[in-house]
């Protein structure tokens, strides 16, 4: 008897609960626009998950909404007598700490509202937070620095933020890359519209922006005031470990030897003299032999005949680059024979990298 009574009560309560939830959902629907609300129901038609994209309150002005977040609330069986679980997804313009703060405030709110509908309260709470921090608190993905008062920044259609200056640099570089790649293709493979489409650096959504006006923005404030970097003792220790590992692997024949593998393939055959000289002549190098060689290659690359076929150029630069190092080649080559290289020490390690630096490291 007791059991039956229990059962009856439980099913009655269930009915009442469902009724209360349906009521709450109806109220939400009345307040929010259809496209702002996404309600998932279970097979019995009871709402179990409510999703809504929340923006800061800026009146009707959506242009000045710089942040947003998707609020996802799972309604467990027994809600509202059981607290729902709150998730914040796809935060835009919000750093981790801000998202964590909203999350914990939302959870506290849910506890306070056990037994009462909490959805509307949650939306309001998130909205208040967003209104309060309606200046992106994350960092610009291009320069990795934050947004300061006075910084000019751009919000993309996908709600990602960049300093206007940084975004301009990205779009300009991407367009240059696109043009270069197009030129490399045979005519029939080229994009006939020849129209470059900028994409968001973070999510690759298409974006529309006016590079000219973006360029007029000043560089980010934080970048300008950042402190310099110096080599620490910790760094030196890591460098030492790296060098030691290199030597151990070299002794086992585990290091790739580009000379033995066909050195021609590794030589730069860039048509662009600026790019080529940059790579062969990294700033700050103190190694004389290397500097000499870089100068040598520089002349080669500056030569008016720089636009030769890849093959010709490869052979020519092979001659030019490697003649001065012939002796080096002789005693350094074929180091894939295990212990032959034992005991050459750090100088050898250094030479290896000096040489490597000049090589094309990714395939054409």
């Amino acid at each position, binding site marked *: 008897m007791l059991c039956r009574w229990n059962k009856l009560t439980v099913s009655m309560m269930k009915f009442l609960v469902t009724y209360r939830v349906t009521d709450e959902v109806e109220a939400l629907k009345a307040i929010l626009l259809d496209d702002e609300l996404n309600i998932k129901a279970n097979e019995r038609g009871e709402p179990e998950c409510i999703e809504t994209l929340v923006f800061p309150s800026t009146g009707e002005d959506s242009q000045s909404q710089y942040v947003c977040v998707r609020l996802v609330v799972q309604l467990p069986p027994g809600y509202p007598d059981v607290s729902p679980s709150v998730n914040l997804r796809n935060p835009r313009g919000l750093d981790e700490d801000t998202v964590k703060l909203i999350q914990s405030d939302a959870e506290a709110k849910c506890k306070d509202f056990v037994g009462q509908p909490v959805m509307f309260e949650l939306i309001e709470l998130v909205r208040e937070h967003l209104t309060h921090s309606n200046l992106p608190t994350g960092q610009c993905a291009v320069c990795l620095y934050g947004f300061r008062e006075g910084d000019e920044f751009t919000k993309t259609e996908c709600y990602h933020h960049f300093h206007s200056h940084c975004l301009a640099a990205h779009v300009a570089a991407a367009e240059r890359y696109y043009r270069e790649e197009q030129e490399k293709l045979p005519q029939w493979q080229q994009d006939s519209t020849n129209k470059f489409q900028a994409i968001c650096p973070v999510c690759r959504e298409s974006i529309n922006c006016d590079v000219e006006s973006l360029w007029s923005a000043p560089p980010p404030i934080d970048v300008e005031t950042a402190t*310099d970097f110096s080599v620490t003792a910790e760094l030196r220790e890591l460098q030492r470990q790296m060098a030691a590992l290199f030597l151990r*692997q070299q002794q086992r*024949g585990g290091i790739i030897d580009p000379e033995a593998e066909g050195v021609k393939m590794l030589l730069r055959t860039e048509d662009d003299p600026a790019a080529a000289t940059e790579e062969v002549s990294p700033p700050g190098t103190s190694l004389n032999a290397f500097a000499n060689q870089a100068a040598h290659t520089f002349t080669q690359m500056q030569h008016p005949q720089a636009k030769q076929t890849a093959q010709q150029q490869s052979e020519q630069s092979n001659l030019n680059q490697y003649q001065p190092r012939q002796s080096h080649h002789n005693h350094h080559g074929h180091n894939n024979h295990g212990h032959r290289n034992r005991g050459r020490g750090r100088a050898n390690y250094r030479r290896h990298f000096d040489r490597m630096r000049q090589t094309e490291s990714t395939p054409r």
Partner: protein
Amino acid sequence: MTALPRRIIKETQRLMQEPVPGISAVPDDTNARYFHVIVTGPEDSPFEGGLFKLELFLPEDYPMSAPKVRFITKIYHPNIDRLGRICLDILKDKWSPALQIRTVLLSIQALLSAPNPDDPLANDVAELWKVNESEAIRNAKEWTRRFAMDN
């Protein structure tokens, strides 16, 4: 010496302060754009237990163009050739300035877990990987043991 972009300085600092497990990248003494890298072979891959040396160079217009990365330690992998060059889209046309040294190296580590013989760079390796995967994996393990283990 041309001033080093702040972004490179910041990345270097973060690499030191919050290192990525299984990855270390250290700038060179004389050239802060050149990094000495070690990537550990991922668990449950034929490269497990290996310490792979790579070199990474940040070109003049980094982060607007991709870093140049190459394996220095020999590795038996269908998407890495004899010279250590890596076939990976984010190093080429899918580069984005939102990627960083750490994300690039993580992607390379992920490539070790998921070889793709259908998009080969090392043709002989890819061929074997397709017709006789177990032998290819044996080779990869053997190369790892011979060249990349540090004991």
